[in-house]
């Protein structure tokens, strides 16, 4: 049996921190919790958890700032973003900063634990809403000037996988539906995540620039 993933919870909302901790206690190994960017960076560097559960909105720069500061010292650290917001600009900001997944806080404890394990294993976690957003952002024809077709476009298979995620299918259901292995489903989602982080597609960079998320 694989060991339970170690987790650090970062959220400025104390009530929520305690709630997540209580819910996850049986499922994962919660190594610490922090309520500010500064304490979070210290706790992550200190505890070296498999996965950091990261709130998007926090005073002092939010989750994006935590990722930026931790990346200088632990570039391989894996983050799973957690937020009450499902606004596109929040999703794009945290994913492009380096989070490997985005789930909303309404997620159940067991689902969250599953998502943490998936991030621990290096896979991406897409909620139906995030999948819908990615489909929206990569929707339509590529206009001239967007140079990299490799990064700026989804393959038909990736599109199909995302569409099924958006429809509420679990990975294993998607695998069964498309007659592929769950590993292949994960590979497709990972490829989409990479494109999401690296693509210069207009729709993606626009939010980042508008919100001054990139220089």
């Amino acid at each position, binding site marked *: 049996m694989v060991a339970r993933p170690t987790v650090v919870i970062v959220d400025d909302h104390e009530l929520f921190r305690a709630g997540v901790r209580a819910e996850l206690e049986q499922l994962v190994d919660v190594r610490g919790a922090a309520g500010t960017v500064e304490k979070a960076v210290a706790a992550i560097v200190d505890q070296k958890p498999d996965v950091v559960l990261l709130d998007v909105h926090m005073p002092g720069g939010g989750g994006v700032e935590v990722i930026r500061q931790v990346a200088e010292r632990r570039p391989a650290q894996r983050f799973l973003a957690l937020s009450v917001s499902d*606004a596109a600009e929040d999703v794009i900001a945290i994913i492009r900063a380096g989070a490997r997944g985005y789930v909303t806080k309404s997620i159940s404890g067991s689902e969250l634990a599953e998502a943490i394990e998936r991030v621990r294993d290096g896979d991406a976690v897409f909620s*139906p*809403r995030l*999948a*819908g957003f990615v*489909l*929206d952002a990569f*929707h*339509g024809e590529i206009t001239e000037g967007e140079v990299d077709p490799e990064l700026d476009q989804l393959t038909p298979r990736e599109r199909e996988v995302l*569409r099924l995620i*958006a*429809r*509420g*299918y679990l990975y294993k*259901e998607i695998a069964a539906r498309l007659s592929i292995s769950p590993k292949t489903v994960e590979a497709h989602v990972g490829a989409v995540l990479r494109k999401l982080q690296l693509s210069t597609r207009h729709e993606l960079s626009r939010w980042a620039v508008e919100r001054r998320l990139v220089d």
Partner: protein
Amino acid sequence: MSVAPAPLRRDPAHGWIAGVFAGLGERLRIDPLILRVGFMVVVVATGGLALVGYVVAWAALPATEDKPAPLARFARVPRVRGDWRVALGVGLLTLSCLLAFRQLGIWWSDAVVWPLVVAAFGVALLWRRARSSAEDEVPGPATTERPPAASGEIASPEGGAPSSPVGDLYRGVFGVLLVIGAGLLFLLSNDVFGGIRDAALTTVVVVVALALILAPFLWRLAHNLASERAERIRSQERAELAAHLHDSVLQTLVLMQTRADDPREVAALARRQERELRDWLAGDGRRSAEGRFAAALRHSAEEIEDDHRVAIDVVVVGDCDFDERSEAVLGAAREALVNAAKHAGEAGLIRVYAEVDDDGIELFVRDRGPGFDPATTPADRQGVRESIIGRMERVGGTAEIRTAPEGGTEVGLTVRQPGAEREGGAS
């Protein structure tokens, strides 16, 4: 045993005049008499100029018995408030300007000097007073309790301000008298009281004096009105926010406590409140345009959420205007949602995913309910199926109901736009 040298002080108790040399002698450990004799020699040698140095030393040095130096004391005397000092400064500044003009040859009459200086002093006093009273009002809580009517009495002294009302009034009256006196002085020195030809000049001087007197009060009145309006807007916004929270969140929280024994009801209440709060916080920016497909779909889902106490998550990619096809999809989706809410509402979240593009609309309603076997579908559900499938077929679309024993039910609705009617506006 070493004693830290005491700072230089005067010693009036042992001194002859103000105790400067008594203090200095003690500090230097020299007999003050030697210093005094030496100083007298210096005074004689400089023709009395060194006496000025004595006066400066008296003014600048504090006396031994813990009193500040006369200079510092003067600056701290409550009655010599900032306004007086500023007014004095303005008067002196005016005087020096006039002298400079005179020296430069830009000059008309010596008669204007004193009236102008006195007037400048008085005006500065009035303006300072108006300013400082207005600034005193800035701290909020104390002044907000004041009845609004009090703001009308602009000329009367304000209570509670650091300056005493009597002193305030006194300064005001003094300033007014100074300005009027300056006007009269000017008229007198120009010898115009007897001459009718100078009646116009008299009027001008009086008007100017009145304007100078009234200007600060008018300015203060305008300033007060502006700050009062800003305060009113602020409190209005606060009241609006409070009213909103009271009508919505607070009510819901109370309701949830009374229904604590019904988890499903509590969840529905919380969800509805969350939705309302999100809408309110987002203003109208985030929601897709009203009167289009995506907004209508979300609205339908919300209605069903409320009616059936279920949770529905809607994800829409793209949007389009209404036509008979999108209306058919919407109607069929509603049926499918009601169906899912009735039969699978207990089983968790119902998901709606719609993708709208130039080719058409695809919509999926998925629940995690027990599922059903289409072959053994009861008659009433058959009817619902008809209203879904039949509705879609009438606009040339399809409806597919997919069900799996453990995977719940999914209704897929598809309608294609006829190739000729491609619509470029949707994104």
